[in-house]
Every structure is written in structure tokens, then in C-alpha cells.
């Protein structure tokens, strides 16, 4: 009985922190549903970054110039970094990295539907930067204020870097648009393929998104799927005009009354199919991730073996930080770390 009283008191404290728009930190008590929702969302987010390396990575060896190659390498490396920030945030919720990797390659956890579409032309590299990373920014900026501290902090780092991703994509497309008719046609064809999947990145419409209300109440999400989708469309339309491409939606027009664009609905059945594993590249993406994990096993084992073989207490430490002068050491030799 006292346990349930304790629980009620803890829940009250938790709700009070949320109500004050403060952050929940890893060792705070949290409702199991809150933790579960976060694990699902943060893991899915981390997996998306990792799987997201594949569609663009496919063009690394075929980039048209050294400059484009260096940019693309940096971008793909960033995606890996974003995945790692997010895995590290997810682990503070009590799941291990090995479990997370396992759940991704077993298909028990999802990643963003967008990465199940192929990158058929080099213009796709630009379109992904512009539209896909643009949509991701819309999604992620409000998440910097999410109620779970480590997730919000990871999002802040991610958002700082996403801006480079979007700009390099737009610049790439601008360059192609100032090229030949063939290059312009490549850009338009790419935009035609990615526009609807980019809109689907925000998830199903609000009336078909049962978890949204709970996530909003907990401060995990800050906006509904439809709000973010609208924001993305409004942001993107003038960018498309400036670029000189047509967004493939006959219903897209400015609505003076609403002060926003009206636009058509994506094919929600397609989203359901892609999420449930029947998208164009689902099997390929997971098989590639599994192969990379399994092929890397010997490297992980060798590094562990090397770490055991070379373990000399104190030796590594001197390599890590320049050895401070004796005045910084207290009498028992420990280094002052403040």
C-alpha cells in the first residue's frame, strides 16, 4: 500500500516537472509509458540516422567532383554522428546499444519510411538534402525543447548540423538548374519522386495518430504531425519557386484566408505499406545494416582483445590529457578535475 502511495507521490512530482516545462533527467522517476514511448521514438530516430547513410552513401564513389565528394562524405559522416548522439541518449533510458542494434536488424524497431526509397540519380543527393533534411529540420527544431533532457540535448547538436545538410542540397540543385536541360529535367524528376515521401515523413494525419495526444501531454512531442507538415509545405513552396521546379501537387495553392498553403494528401496506404516493410528498399537497407554489423564483428573483437592485452593502468591516462604539473595533483596523486 505504501508503495502505491510512493508511486502516486512520484507521479505527482513528475507531472509537476512537466507542467513547469522543466526537463526530466535520466535518473528521475518516470512513468513506464513515458520511458517506453521515448525508447521507441529515440531509437527510431537513431536508426533513421544510421539507415539514412545508405541512400546517399551509394553516391559517394560516383560524386561528380572532389568538392562534391568531400561534402557528401562529411554529410554521411554527420548522419553517423547523429545516430550516435541519439543512441547515447536512448541508452540513458536503460537499453543497451547491442540491444538497439539487434532490434533494428531484427526488424523489431522501425526507422523513417523515407529511407526505403532508392536514390536513382545524382540529383537525389540534392533533393534529399533539400526536402528530406528540410523536413527533418521541421521535425527536430521543436524537439530541442522535448521534456527528456538527453534527447533535447542530442537534438540541439543535430539541428546545428542539419542546416549544412539542407544548404548543400539546395546549392547542389541550384547548380544543376543552371546547367543543361537534361540536368534540369533530372532535378524535376527527382523532386517528383521525393515530394510525397517527404510529406509522409511527418507520419500519419492527426486523426490516425493515436499516440500523439499522450506524447504532447508528456512534452515528448511539441507539435502534431499535421502542424509540422503544414509548416514544411509553407517553408518549401517559395524555395521551389526560386529553384525553378514544380512541386507535383495539383491541389497546392496559397489560401489567403488561412494564411497557409492548401495541399493534397499523400497516399497513406503507401505509407502503411512502406512502414510495414513492403517499401522499395526495406529488405536491402536491413540486409546491408546486418552485413555491416556482422562483417565488423572481428574488428570489435580485435579491439577488445587489444584493449585487454595493452591494459596498463596509468599509462593511457598520460596520453589522454597533458600531464598537469605537480601543483595540480593533490597529496594522493589524483588530478584535480575541476
Amino acid at each position, binding site marked *: 500500500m505504501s508503495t502505491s502511495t510512493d508511486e502516486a507521490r512520484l507521479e505527482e512530482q513528475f507531472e509537476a516537472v512537466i507542467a513547469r516545462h522543466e526537463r526530466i*533527467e*535520466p*535518473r*528521475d*522517476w518516470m512513468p513506464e509509458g513515458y520511458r517506453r514511448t521515448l525508447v521507441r521514438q529515440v531509437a527510431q530516430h537513431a536508426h533513421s540516422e544510421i539507415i539514412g547513410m545508405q541512400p546517399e552513401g551509394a553516391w559517394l564513389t560516383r560524386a561528380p567532383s572532389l568538392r562534391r565528394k568531400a561534402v557528401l562524405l*562529411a554529410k554521411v*559522416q*554527420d548522419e553517423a*554522428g547523429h545516430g*550516435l*548522439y541519439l543512441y*547515447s*541518449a536512448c*541508452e*540513458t533510458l536503460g537499453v*543497451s*546499444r*547491442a540491444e538497439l542494434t539487434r532490434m533494428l536488424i531484427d526488424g523489431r524497431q522501425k526507422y523513417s519510411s523515407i529511407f526505403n526509397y532508392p536514390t536513382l540519380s545524382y540529383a537525389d543527393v540534392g533533393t534529399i538534402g533539400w526536402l528530406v533534411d528540410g523536413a527533418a529540420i521541421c521535425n527536430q527544431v521543436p524537439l530541442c525543447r522535448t521534456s527528456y533532457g538527453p534527447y533535447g*540535448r*542530442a537534438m540541439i*547538436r543535430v539541428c546545428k*548540423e542539419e542546416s549544412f545538410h539542407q544548404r548543400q542540397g539546395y546549392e547542389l540543385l541550384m547548380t544543376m538548374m543552371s546547367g543543361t536541360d537534361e540536368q534540369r529535367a533530372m532535378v524535376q524528376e527527382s523532386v517528383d519522386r521525393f515530394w510525397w515521401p517527404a510529406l509522409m515523413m511527418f507520419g500519419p494525419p492527426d486523426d490516425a495518430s493515436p499516440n500523439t495526444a499522450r506524447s504532447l501531454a508528456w512534452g515528448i512531442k511539441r507539435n502534431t504531425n499535421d502542424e509540422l507538415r503544414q509548416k514544411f509545405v509553407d517553408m518549401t513552396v517559395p524555395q521551389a519557386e526560386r529553384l525553378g521546379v514544380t512541386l507535383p501537387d495539383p491541389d497546392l495553392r496559397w489560401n489567403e484566408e488561412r494564411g497557409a498553403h492548401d495541399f493534397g494528401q499523400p497516399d497513406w496506404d503507401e505509407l502503411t505499406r512502406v512502414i510495414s516493410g513492403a517499401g522499395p528498399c526495406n529488405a536491402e537497407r536491413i540486409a546491408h545494416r546486418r552485413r555491416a554489423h556482422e562483417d565488423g564483428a572481428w574488428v*570489435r*573483437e580485435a*579491439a*577488445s*582483445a*587489444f*584493449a*585487454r592485452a*595493452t*591494459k596498463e593502468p596509468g599509462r*593511457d*591516462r598520460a*596520453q*589522454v*590529457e597533458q600531464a598537469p604539473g605537480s601543483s595540480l595533483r593533490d597529496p594522493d596523486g589524483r588530478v584535480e*578535475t*575541476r
Partner: protein
Amino acid sequence: MTTTPNDTSPRAEWPLYEVFVRGKRGLNHVHVGSLHAADDTMALHHARDVYTRRNEGVSIWVVRADAITASSPDEKDPLFAPSGDKVYRHPTFYDVPADVPHM
């Protein structure tokens, strides 16, 4: 703090390290996140790649997460209580006439 079991078998997950970065000279090292590595040297290299790709730091500390002792959130109130009732430790506790300069 998250603890990592001292499992040293080759298949075991690499230990967790917490990463602290000094943004520039004159600032403290600040906690930026965590990562897994087989040993300290690898942790440092990974920390550079993961957390300082854009000149975010001039110095990095990595420390195994299981080497950190942290206060417990359950004891937060009693632990910090001793400073709660000592308002006289703050400058605003003292009444000084408004026309006294430089104070």
C-alpha cells in the same frame, strides 16, 4: 550513473565512456554525451570524431561511466538541504544604502 558490467569477454559490449569537451581556452570542460570504446585511447579518438567535427573543442576528457560516483536523485532533498536555509550566503541578504558606490 549508468554502470557497465566488468565483462571482458570478446563478445561483450565495449564499456561506456562519458565525454567532456573544453570548448575554448578559459572555459570548463563540459559534459557532451557518451560513447562506447574498447579502451581509453579509442574512446578519445571516437570522442573527437563524434563530438568535435566542427572545432567544438580544444581539449577532451573521457572517463569510464562506471568510474563516476553520482548523487542519487532520491536523496536530492536531504543532500542539498544544508544550503537551502542559508540565505545569508547571498549578497542580496545584506541591506546596504543605495547611494554607496561600487557595491
